[in-house]
């Protein structure tokens, strides 16, 4: 049930995610040197276009990649078909995006938290 277009979207987002995951892990290791500190993390991310783009693109890639993967599982193991299957994919993708985008927005440009 995976057409070429969905396959390509999933592969391209996987390619994007590989460096993001490595970057994320590297920053995590760097950030906890001397303890985990909210102020230190927010100090790095708030108002930063670079971190907004880094994690923003990461979230978009995850949403697309994950939704297509869940679609395959729902089809092969869950027996979902047709419009139900498409709806499931979109809900999963938009849900992942909403959760991720909220987090990214909160640590970069949202006002009033940790300030």
């Amino acid at each position, binding site marked *: 049930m995976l057409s*070429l277009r969905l396959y390509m979207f999933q592969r391209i987002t996987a390619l994007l995610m590989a460096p993001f995951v490595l970057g994320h892990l590297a920053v995590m290791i760097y950030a906890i040197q001397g303890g985990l500190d909210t102020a230190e993390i927010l100090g790095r991310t708030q108002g930063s276009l670079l971190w907004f783009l880094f994690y923003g693109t990461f979230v978009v890639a995850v949403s697309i990649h994950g939704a297509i993967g869940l679609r395959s599982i729902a089809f092969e193991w869950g027996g979902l078909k047709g419009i139900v299957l498409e709806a499931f994919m979109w809900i999963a993708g938009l849900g992942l995006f909403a959760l991720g985008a909220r987090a990214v927005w909160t640590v970069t440009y949202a006002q009033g938290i940790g300030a």
Partner: protein
Amino acid sequence: MKNKGLIAFVESSNRLYRDEKLNLAADLRDMTKSSLAVTIERGPVDHRMQVFDVPAYDNQTVLDVVSWVQQNADPTLSYRFACRVGMCGSCAMMVNGVPRWTCRTHISKVLDGNKVTIGPLRNLPIIKDLAVDMDPFFDKWVAAEGVHHGGLTRDDPIAAIDETSSEREEANAGIECINCSVCYAACDTVAGNSNYLGPAALQRAWTLLNDSKDEGYAAILEIVSGSGGCHNCHSMGSCTAYCPNELDPMSAIAGLKRETAKSFFKRGR
């Protein structure tokens, strides 16, 4: 002539002793000649597992065992075979849960103690007992453009084939497929997705795509990019692991994925 009598006596007792030894050897052979506990899946109506006691021989294939049951124990047992030499692809069955060509599988290779379980091929509708309906398998072969797309007429000269070209090597890699459906039965993606064309049909598509005599390139790319196409493959590799002819459908499908990805970037579809 006392000696003559003695010699005759010794000779006769030697003969007796030798005969006795031969008899003993024969008895020992008979004692070690055991029987096999063969469980056969009967169906599809009144689906049940039936155990048969089959004599063991030194040289015996799984197909021999099934044939013995049909000829000596239960003539109503249905199964399919033709060539018995691994060419026709008719006799594939599930043996201890994995697909095998039964005519070329020695029973000693699959015995668990003296037990073996034989069932109909997976992923295909059962007609009766060990005979499955191969129609979906062959229909998908055709659906994957597994037909000749000729571009020449009988008046054209025969096209020269470069046996050393990389395309020809790719095509050659898949041409020994005997359509036995072992890969199709082994594939977990087929099990979860009945639309999926499956490893054999896609390998054929890859073979034709690389065959310079075949002009179906665009048609093949189109169909293998569709909803039942090569992108459903999760590269689990059961096709390649179980292919009795040691072909590599998984790599053929990977080739189709590469080719369709290139076409996606070139033409945006």
